[in-house]
């Protein structure tokens, strides 16, 4: 299956999940975490999914992002059925069309901040000089250009997570997946990271799918869902989304602002 930009070009939606189920077996017990769940995310839209611990948020995100496979159901990325692909083909899509922000930053500590951000472009076999330019550009946007040559252990948690967001977006993915991206941060840093992420996604016209405990952040998204007992319940829509119209989103973002 040839996955080119053309056949990945969407028909209005970035991600479509059709009736997926996922169960985990522990000993004799089987726990059904996702029960015929469906979701559609349009291109450029942001979706926040809330839910209690153990409700299956991470499982949903991992299936949606292609890190895991559903037991049943289908996942379409653009118009491409994603869930039935082999791992190498999914890797190819992950490398070129998706970004992922984890609860912890997972930056490679032997690499500098700049090199960490360059990784997705190098995986796509882009030239180092091009990757450096792109990474520097993002570093400027997130206000960490002075830290380009530092290693992650020399940065604060909030700064590391901002770098992780930049790394997830440097190759301009169609969809950004974020799994509790502020889970390990204090409130101030968490706000900064969320603003940054929403602003960058908006500027790049990417879709965002984020799972979080924090219901306050849910108000920033176009669509809000709550995951419980394996199913999603729609908790509201917003024409607002995030956020400013600035080209340097991190420095000038304000939430919320008007956007249709």
């Amino acid at each position, binding site marked *: 299956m040839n996955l080119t930009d053309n056949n990945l070009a969407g028909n209005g939606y970035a991600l479509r999940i059709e009736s997926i189920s996922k169960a985990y077996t522990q000993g004799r017990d089987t726990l059904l975490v996702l029960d015929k769940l469906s979701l559609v995310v349009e291109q450029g839209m942001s979706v926040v999914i809330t839910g209690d611990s153990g409700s299956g948020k991470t499982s949903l995100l991992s299936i949606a992002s292609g890190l895991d496979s559903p037991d049943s159901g289908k996942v379409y990325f653009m118009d491409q059925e994603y869930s039935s692909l082999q791992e190498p083909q999914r890797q190819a899509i992950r*490398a070129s069309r998706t970004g992922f922000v984890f609860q912890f930053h997972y930056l490679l500590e032997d*690499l500098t901040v700049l090199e960490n951000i360059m990784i997705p472009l190098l*995986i796509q076999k882009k030239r180092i000089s091009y990757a450096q330019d792109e990474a520097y550009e993002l570093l400027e946007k997130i206000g960490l250009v002075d830290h380009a040559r530092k290693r992650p252990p020399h940065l604060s948690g909030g700064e590391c997570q901002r770098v992780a967001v930049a790394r997830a977006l440097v190759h301009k993915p169609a969809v950004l997946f974020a799994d509790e991206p502020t889970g390990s941060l204090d409130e101030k840093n968490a706000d900064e990271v969320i603003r940054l992420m929403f602003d960058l996604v908006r500027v790049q016209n990417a879709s965002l799918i984020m799972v979080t405990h924090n219901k306050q952040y849910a108000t920033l998204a176009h669509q809000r869902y709550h995951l419980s007992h394996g199913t999603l319940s729609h908790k509201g829509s917003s024409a607002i989304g995030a956020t400013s119209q600035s080209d340097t989103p991190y420095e000038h973002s304000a939430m919320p602002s008007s956007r249709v």
Partner: protein
Amino acid sequence: MEILTLLIRKSLFMPSRRNKEGLLLIVLSLSVGVASIVVVLSIMNEMQDQIIRSLVSIESYDAVLYPTVDIRDSLVQFYNELYTVVDSIDGTIGSALGSAQSDTRNNARGDSLTAVAFSDQAVYVSSPNNSQVMQLRVLDYERANQDTVLLDALNITNFDKGAIVIGALLAQKLQVWYGDVVEVNFVPQSGGFVPQQHNLFIYDVFYSASLYDSGWGFMDIHHYRELFGDYPSSMNIGLRHSRILDNTSIDKLGSMRTWQENNRAFYYALRVEKIMISLLLVVIFFIIVLHYYFVQWRRIFSKHKDIIALRALGYSTRYIRLWFLLETAIVGIVSITCGTLLGFMISRYRATIIDTVGMLFRYRFSIDFGTTFFFSFKELVVLVIGIMCALLWVSFFASRNISRMTSMEFYREFN
């Protein structure tokens, strides 16, 4: 490949402080392991060499041929037959007995084949100062002069016709030196042989590491014939060339016994020693390999977060495994190089090291194999390739979990 280069460059050559210490410990431990193999191998080789040198320099022919023909009647014919066979195995041959001609050729390996007629008998030797029993080896000097192994073992340049060569210890007891004349009493070897006494000129005195050798003397077979009118009654042919043992046509000339057969007890003692040290080498080798497997397994585990991130970003498992394999190749090359050099140093100066350690503990070790360094290139190549292959294999084996676990399994482990 640029990301692979970047990952290897940063994780191996510019690692963070924590990883740097771990990496140094890996290289250090592997180097010590390799050095211990080099030292043990070197000691084993040198010990064998020393033992063989000190005990069997005279008796160190690869094989001895015990002729089935009556040599005294047809010695020239016998030699010619022998040389024909010898010539067919691409070695170096000497002239036929009784001929002044010499024909020397080298085979492809540069080895020289020597086939030397000899006969051993006990004689009584006297000087104006002392008398001793001497083991006399009546030898074809002309051919013995081509036997560089024997000449080296005896520390002499050549044998000279018409004169005898005796061991230094014997010379010391007799209080004679080269240039002197000793009186040699030949005792009967068989019925009808009349005891004879001859004054013989000492051409040279040999030094050998072997106490056994020091009671020996050598005499030319032609000189013997001049004195007694005949060759010795019993002659054997010493052969020095490993490939002669493979030649079956030589069997018709007589029965052949190898060095191992002639020195069975000693040979088996050496074999046992070699097997024990080889076992020690195998144990060290496995300790190194298992140690590296554990280290690599831990290293991969400690990089799980990196692996999660790389896989989530779309980096393939194949390249992640290649990353660890290339790291192993570089760590292996550095460790083996350092370990080999360290092993060389310890082997070269181990006498000094042992003495120093002995002084620290106020105990003098009696082990001293001298300072000769002994390590063959072939063994070095086998060592390097063997350890390198083993490290790569265990690294590949240790990294198999990367592909077995799904990205999500990795992810869940840390969430």
